């Protein structure tokens, strides 16, 4: 029951937003309050159930039959695979509200959209039914389209429709796969489907192909990524937080939660290629990030690169790799949100995002620069920070399953260290490029309030990864058992 409440609370929040009077401070504080409630509840669930390892408690799940003749139901529940992202979705919504200082018009509507998207994001990680999963998956689409299209920069309309069409195509293909799966297996309940749903390997392969294709567009895996840059660059900062922090994980989570355990024989022939795509993401993302003159585009490509580790770890299909992948989903969300917010801070203070025009910001913006450095170090996988743990586990698992891909992935770490350090050198260090920057101040309290928790979590999870891994471990073992690995 509590899961359902958490998932649908933001919907009430969205309605509340629309009913509020048009007073900016009131709206902002109310939005913070609305966003905080699900987060508090998720933390309650974490301490009450998560730490004790009983997320499968019946008080967290719900199971109604909805369309009986098809075996479709309203089935929600939490498990270790989704819990980290469930938490992150609630957290990043709150952070996004805090980081929404650049939204000045139609604030109420913006928050309402954000909360509708939150329903979808939370729902995906709690859904235990294929159709319900798809519905929540798609619910995020329209609010995101509108958030980019209404509040983005001058290129926003083309970016928004491109984003919509690409991801809608992917998810519709995925739906076709889901429907074929459910109708052949006789149910859409993820718990009842089990490994393979009783289907032969040919049928599983035929179903896994469209499902994987749809999910990989959402991630996006590299040949399917062309929608991403425009929309990342055009979005407002707070939309970026959600767009890069949570939305790609709808795709990777689908692979880990549905494709792997439910279609083990189906995905098997594709796994080396998924791992290879992961490596391509890592290397390609790093290379292209190198060439970006725009700070935000650099962060966007860096994000593509790091997502590759999730694909690699997931494709490995062993306990280490999967643990890494599941954790990388969370850590990637933390650091990419951090970087996007700081890029937004720098852009609004200096009036430019071009790396060539920046430089020497550390002197004038010590807090922002320091946190940016922390984020960049996290992104390159510096030991002691959370991303290191998850990337390392992904590579280890990947190396065990696919040695070539595993070795190539380490290349990505080297490359990312290169471009991220180069970026830091040219933006925050060195002499001040532009005399106008002498006057600028440091990041404001709102920005710091948004960023500091993320930085803190990166450090905490880097030191105590067990806080997350212990929660996800049983579910990961179940997935490994389903694919018949060790």
């Amino acid at each position: 029951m509590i899961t359902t409440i958490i998932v649908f609370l933001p919907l009430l929040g969205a309605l509340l937003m629309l009913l509020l009077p048009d007073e900016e401070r009131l709206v902002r504080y109310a939005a913070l309050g609305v966003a905080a409630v699900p987060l508090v509840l998720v933390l309650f669930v974490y301490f009450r159930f998560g730490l004790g390892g009983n997320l499968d408690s019946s008080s967290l799940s719900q199971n109604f039959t909805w369309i009986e003749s098809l075996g479709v139901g309203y089935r929600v529940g939490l498990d270790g695979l989704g819990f980290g992202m469930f938490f992150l979705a609630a957290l990043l919504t709150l952070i996004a509200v805090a980081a929404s200082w650049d939204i000045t018009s139609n604030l109420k509507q913006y928050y309402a959209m954000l909360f509708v998207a939150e329903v979808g994001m939370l729902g995906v990680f709690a859904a235990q039914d294929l159709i319900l999963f798809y519905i929540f998956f798609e619910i995020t689409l329209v609010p995101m389209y509108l958030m980019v299209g209404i509040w983005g920069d001058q290129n926003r309309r083309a970016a928004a429709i491109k984003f919509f069409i690409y991801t809608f195509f992917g998810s519709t293909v995925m739906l076709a796969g889901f429907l074929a799966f459910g109708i052949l297996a006789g149910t859409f309940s993820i718990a009842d489907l089990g490994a393979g749903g009783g289907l032969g390997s040919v049928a599983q392969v035929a179903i896994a192909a469209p499902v994987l294709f749809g999910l990989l567009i959402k991630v996006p895996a590299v040949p399917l990524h062309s929608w991403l840059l425009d929309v990342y660059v055009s979005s407002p900062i707070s939309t970026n937080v959600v767009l890069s922090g949570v939305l790609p994980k709808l795709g990777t989570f689908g692979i880990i939660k549905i494709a792997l355990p439910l279609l083990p024989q189906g995905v098997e022939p594709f796994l080396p290629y998924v791992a290879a795509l992961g490596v391509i993401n890592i290397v390609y993302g790093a290379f292209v990030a190198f060439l970006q003159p725009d700070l935000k585009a650099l962060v966007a490509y860096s994000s593509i690169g790091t997502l590759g580790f999730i694909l690699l770890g997931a494709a490995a299909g062993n306990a280490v790799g999967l643990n890494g992948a599941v954790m990388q989903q969370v850590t990637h969300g933390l650091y990419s949100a951090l970087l996007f917010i700081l890029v937004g801070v720098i852009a609004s203070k200096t009036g430019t995002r071009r790396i060539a025009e920046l430089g020497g910001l550390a002197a004038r913006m010590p807090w922002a620069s320091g946190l940016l450095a922390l984020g960049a170090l996290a992104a390159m996988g510096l030991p002691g920070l959370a991303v290191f743990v998850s990337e390392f586990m992904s590579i280890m698992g990947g190396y065990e399953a696919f040695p070539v891909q595993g070795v190539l992935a380490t290349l990505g770490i080297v490359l990312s260290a290169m471009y991220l350090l180069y970026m830091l050198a040219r933006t925050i260090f060195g002499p001040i490029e532009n005399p106008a920057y002498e006057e600028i101040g440091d990041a404001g309290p709102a920005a710091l309030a948004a960023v500091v928790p993320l930085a803190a979590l990166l450090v905490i999870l880097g030191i105590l990864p067990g806080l997350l891994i212990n929660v996800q471990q049983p579910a990961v073992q179940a997935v490994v058992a389903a694919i018949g690995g060790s």
Partner: protein
Amino acid sequence: MPVTPETFVALIPELVALGFLVLVLLLGVFVPRSAAVPAALAALGSLAVFGSAVVLLAAGFSGEFFGGAFVVDGFALYFKLVVSASAFFTVLAAARWSGGTGDAPEYMTLILSVVAGSILLVSMRDLFGIFLAIELATIPSYAMVAFDRSRRESSEGGMKYLITGVIASSVLLYGIVLIYGVSGSAQLSEVAQAFSEGLSPVALLGLVLLVSGFAFKVSAAPFHFWTPDAYQGAPTSAAAFLSVAPKAATFAVLLRILLEGMPEAAPAWTAVMAFIAILTMFVGNLFALRQRNVRRMLAYSSVAHSGYILAAFAALQGPALSTGVQAVMIYSAAYAVMNLGAFFVIDLVGDDGKSYNGLLKTRPGIALSMGVFMAALVGLPPLSGFFGKLYVILAGAQSGSVLVYVVVGAVVVNSVLSVPYYFGIVRNMFFEEPGGGEPGVSGSGALRFSVYALAVATALFFLVMGPLAALVSGAGLV
């Protein structure tokens, strides 16, 4: 005994519709120049038809009458519900406009006669009875399209609809006569016997002519060309109603003919349907993409949606038979709520794409409703259109035929193809600034009520999906 008291019970919805039809007409004679009275009466009549069908359905009434030529079953009653509910909203939406023409009683009579024809149609099991009922629904619809004397497009659209319609009727009739010649009877049960002995050349010819005639009536490509002109010219309420109610009934009866009359010929007609479905989807969407006029765009969109429904026809084989029938039923209801709503918004705002600019700021309620309709027409969950597509793809996935998988692929591709033009409207409403294009009319309260009610129905369709799915899975033809 041909006629028993039971027969009259079976005919209650039709008798109610005809009773109100005559009542509206008489009132038009005795209470001249009143718009409210005929509209109220017609709305009441639609509700009465709806109510009587609900009662028959709840009572589990079913049976065959007139020697098996007229049947009342869950399938027929379901479509009577769809038709009469659509009629109710259409009457509300048309009330003020028809008053403005000064001929409200006539217009309402025409709506009710289309209702009468459509609800009769879904119960018919005799080929000539089907033809008669189609004509009872079509002949008044020619007049509905041409009814608006203040716009030249109206009579033009009416004439194009009329000419193609009567040609299509004669083609359809030829097909029926040839099938009658082959089987010696027009009753579907005996037609099925004749078709079970293999397809003779004339039987095949009759089938082709019949399907072509039906393709005209449901605006399937390549016989769709009347649709944009007719719907653009027609009064909005007429376009909305005709694209939903008689079309649903025509699909229903085509389903009945194919499944009850020629199940043995299924390999032939599913293949034909597969090709027509693919062609129709692509033609509808590709032409809709080019439209600047919103009404014309919705006309092409209705062609595309016919294609989606025909995709379910292509899947009517093997294990997917029952799901395919359910898909047609669910799609018809889902399409009715969203498409009626979208057309009614045109009545409120106008058919120039520019008049939608900044609608979110000037008229947020209407803009949100239109947004819901557009998203539903794309097929986004959890809105009504999603469930229609869900069932269509489900049936396709179940069919186990490669050709049908291709059709399902076309459904997926076309869903994506339709995004730019539906979301073009959303973009204008939500992203653009107001101004540009002429301001829309305000519309009557009844019209706005219809729009809001349909928007709520579209958005909350998932709440009734459970009972609806149970209803259609129990009421299927197979």
